[in-house]
């Protein structure tokens, strides 16, 4: 009984984390985007605001940033990357291959956990739906 209850709690935890990850990744929207894709439609920008609605982005000067942010993207980073102080914190794009993402040589599995959670969500759902179906079939026979 204890084993069954602990499995149930574990499954509920997987479901909750899975749903959170599902929403965080906009999983439903991204999965179905291909069905609403139109090659004739103009590109609407990242948030669907359209080119007219897009606010012009003004890059703040380094000296205008608060102290906490200036420390984070401080001069030491900029010097290490061989760039001027005002561009500190930006990665040296020229050194990377054109197809490489930032941190390409480092093992980075930070985002994989969200996908693992969604994957586990679908697995747990399938297990319980299958169990429920078998139980209903057994009762009918």
């Amino acid at each position: 009984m204890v084993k069954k209850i602990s499995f149930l709690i574990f499954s509920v935890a997987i479901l909750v984390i899975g749903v959170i990850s599902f929403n965080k990744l906009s999983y439903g929207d991204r999965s179905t985007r291909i069905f609403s894709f139109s090659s004739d439609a103009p590109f609407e920008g990242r948030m669907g605001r359209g080119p007219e609605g897009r606010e012009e982005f003004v890059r703040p000067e380094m000296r205008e940033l608060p102290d906490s942010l200036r420390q984070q993207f401080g001069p030491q980073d900029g010097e290490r990357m061989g760039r001027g102080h005002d561009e500190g914190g930006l990665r040296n794009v020229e050194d990377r291959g054109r197809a490489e993402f930032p941190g390409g040589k480092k093992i980075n599995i930070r985002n994989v956990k969200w996908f693992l959670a969604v994957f586990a969500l679908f697995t747990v759902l399938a297990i319980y739906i299958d169990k429920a179906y078998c139980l209903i079939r057994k009762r009918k026979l």
Partner: protein
Amino acid sequence: MNVYKFFLSLSLTIVMLLLMDPRSFYGLSFHEWAGLIIGLFFILHKILNWGWIKKVTMSFFRKCSGKARLNYVLDVLLLAGITLMILSGISISRTIDFSWLNLGGSPMFWRVMHTSSSYITLALFGIHLGLHWNWILQRLHIKKVKNGKEN
């Protein structure tokens, strides 16, 4: 044979999860090469289960259990998903040159196709694993095989 099948399925799952984010692991070059290799792994997975595929194909519209039918339809969808994923991946690849294939279509279309097909395929992978959960428990010796019958 079942041990090979189990480890192949396990490695397929792990690689598939690592491939979901192109920034993960060793970056885009890993993403593209592993994406191609996973296609070969998938074909190997199908070859190892060829007996089941043949049996269900022959009896799909006649004598076949509902679960076997569901698994079969899911497998066909997975095959379609993996094919679309690899095809769209080839057309938007940056570290491997596939320009000689001339697949056509806009890069935006292929990019959206790649994202959507990979997200749908991961969900199908999860459901596929859930429907084969008893088989996995049997392989791990957590659950006993009933009447000598395997899932």
